[in-house]
């Protein structure tokens, strides 16, 4: 589902401007879709709010039609599921930070129009390496262990992104397919690592790593075990915002993204920019893997990434590469996810029913982006006679 949405957005983006400014056609189509860039901030907010209200209405109808539950109760359950207790708030925040971190990693690649679909794999290899450090280097002093884990996971993620980047830069291969396939390699590697480290033998799970010593676990600070997650992700968010917007690198990325030829004309070494940007993108995703393992799950399995690498693509796109907006979008998605789980549990609805609600809400949110970027022009009825 995630990928389809992504592709849809991509196409919209690529069908940009030129095609639509035709000089008076012989017969006007009933509806024309025209790119718009003039919408005011307040208008955008209004469109989005309308989208959300419509989404809630439609899901309310669906909920009632299927389950006969009062939709308001169901929405209340969602909110309490995501924010009802301190633990739930932190759990939602943790999920939000995970998505943000990966989306921040994707931002520079997407900004350059390099379709990095490989975040899932980059997160996983980062996670494998982190788990490996926790298992084999557990006797190192904490600060050293953390330094090793951070560096190793970033290197692993960077390597995973470097390969497709190199091929793109040197031979102009299709990066979408290449990064996508790298995911499957990473998933197999994860299964291999799980089989190697499984505990107990034959159970096919690694279990909680260093359960008693807590070596390599993010420490509990200010009463929360997710303190370091917050700090790291916020730092990355600020860094990436500045990097993309105010540095020479960021400018080069934007130029390459707009047009490789222009970039070449301006004397930018396109290949070098692609490789450099993907190293950064992969490193941040690898670090996200480290945060997932060391800062949250303390185990490794294929669900360590659990599709977040794909969901983060939606986040990055909806946020238009603004890393602060990513925090908000991630919060929304994390909220929907925790909320849906609670509906399943409280209202005795099946998981799938709550997934439907998420689907409806996402559909409307993506839909409202369409109306923000494009204008529908209907054929005037007067002209019809002509």
């Amino acid at each position, binding site marked *: 589902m995630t990928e389809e949405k992504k592709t849809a957005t991509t196409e919209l983006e690529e069908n940009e401007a030129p095609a639509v400014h035709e000089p008076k056609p012989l017969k006007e189509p009933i509806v024309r879709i025209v790119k718009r860039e003039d919408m005011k901030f307040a208008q955008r907010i209004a469109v989005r709010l309308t989208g959300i209200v419509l989404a809630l209405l439609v899901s309310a109808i669906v909920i009632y039609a299927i389950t006969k539950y009062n939709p308001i109760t169901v929405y209340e359950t969602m909110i309490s599921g995501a924010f009802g207790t301190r633990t739930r708030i932190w759990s939602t925040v943790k999920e939000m930070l995970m998505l943000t971190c990966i989306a921040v990693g994707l931002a520079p690649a997407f900004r350059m129009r390099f379709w990095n679909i490989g975040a899932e794999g980059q997160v996983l290899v980062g996670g494998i390496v982190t788990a490996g450090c926790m298992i084999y280097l557990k006797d190192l002093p904490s600060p050293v262990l953390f330094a090793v884990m951070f560096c190793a996971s970033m290197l692993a993620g960077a390597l995973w992104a470097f390969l497709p980047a190199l091929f793109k830069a040197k031979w102009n291969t299709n990066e979408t397919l290449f990064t996508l396939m790298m995911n499957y390699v990473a998933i197999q590697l994860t299964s291999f690592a799980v089989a190697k480290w499984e505990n107990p033998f034959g159970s096919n799970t690694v279990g909680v790593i260093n359960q008693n010593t807590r070596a390599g676990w993010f420490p509990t600070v200010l009463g929360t075990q997710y303190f370091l997650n917050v700090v790291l992700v916020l730092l990355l968010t600020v860094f990436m915002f500045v990097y993309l917007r105010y540095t020479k690198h960021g400018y080069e990325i934007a130029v390459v993204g707009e047009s490789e030829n222009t970039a070449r004309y301006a004397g930018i070494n396109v290949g070098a920019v692609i490789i450099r940007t993907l190293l950064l993108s992969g490193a941040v995703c690898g670090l996200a893997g480290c945060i997932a393992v060391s800062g949250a799950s303390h185990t490794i399995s294929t669900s360590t990434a659990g599709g977040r690498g794909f969901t983060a693509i939606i986040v990055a796109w909806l946020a238009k590469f603004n890393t602060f907006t990513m925090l908000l979008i991630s919060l929304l998605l994390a909220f929907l996810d925790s909320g849906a789980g609670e509906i399943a*549990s409280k209202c005795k609805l099946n998981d799938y029913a709550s997934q439907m609600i998420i689907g409806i809400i996402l559909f409307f949110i993506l839909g409202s982006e369409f109306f923000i970027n494009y204008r529908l022009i209907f054929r005037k009825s007067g002209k019809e006679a002509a």
Partner: protein
Amino acid sequence: MKKKLVSMLMATVMTASLAACGETPAPAGNTPAQTENGGTATAASDVKVGVILVGDENEGYTYAHIDGIKKAAANVGISEDNILWKYSVPEDESCYEAAVDLVDQGCKAVFSNSYGHQSFMQQAAGEYADVQFVAMTGDTAAMSGLSNFSNAFTSVYESRYVSGVVAGMKVAELVDNGALTDANYDADGNVLIGYVGAYPYAEVVSGYTAFFLGVQSVYQNVSMEVTYTNSWFDIAAEGEAANALMADGCVIIGQHADSTGAPAAIQAANAQGKPVYSVGYNVDMLNVAPDAALTSATNNWSVYYTDAFTALVNGEKIPTDWAKGYSADAVAITALGSAAAEGTQAKVDETIAAIKDGSLHVFSTDSFTVGGAKIDSHKVDMNGDFDNEDEEDKEAIWDGYFHESELRAAPSFDLRIDGIKELTAE
């Protein structure tokens, strides 16, 4: 940009505080009342229980748990509204989060029903000393050093043995009727049977060995092939595994995996006239395999949950290692299918009676050999390092049989006995 950041923070804080108003927080000092002599009883209807399930009611193993919990709650007088369910919780950190969330909602005890949940349950148990945690089918409670962490499992090997007896009767009948062809025998003239297992470790090994010995108790000359699917629930893989086993010539397919994949595949082959029959697990398979299902080995979880809930309501500790079988009616086999051989019911009743009165021991050392030799000593891992070479590890064979599930609740019989071949073991 600064303005945006501030407004964003505001929004987050507002949402959080809004939510806080929405729900009445649990009272802060919510520790259970306890006295020196074992604790005080709480009104049963006030006790909240949390349940973490690996699947939902559409999956046989989990359905059996849900059913058992509901019956037990009714027995003990716990209101159904006070049972909080978490469905489809994967065997990863989501289990820890689910457990903590249940504690937040005031649960006095949290149960999880899959092996892979165990280490996450233990993590939660270490952090919430006043709540009891039970990892069903787990094996680390006794040595975890935590007084609020327990394991439990039925002695399902007993009902697997009995289901093996049912299969053995069928094999004998097929041989007598001349229904088998050469393809159904191995090179040594043994009738081939098969088994679809989930994972290659003690829980599964113990189960298929008990099944095999049950078959052999009726019809000695059989050999068994075991394939693993590496999943507890995978309809397609279990169906494929059954097809592969049938292609090898196996006439009875047992299973230790939770879906109806194997019985459905066997029913399809049976309908084409092949002499193949299924012995299921957890639930009656007659509706998916009306002509091919002989019976299923099942657990009656309500027996355990009733014991556990009673302890909880009385303010006592839930038993650290609980394992009961036919003696407490905690295990059973489902109604025999029409394909079962004549006289099976009588043989089954006889076997169950022998297990109950202690005259029959499933893992009697007289009934199996390893590497051609009789075994008189085998230690069980007791300290959780998954070998059996330490001082803490205990001898499980005495009085002429392997004492399954007596030293710890989880199955521990992991000997690979003669006559059984694991096809996909790594």
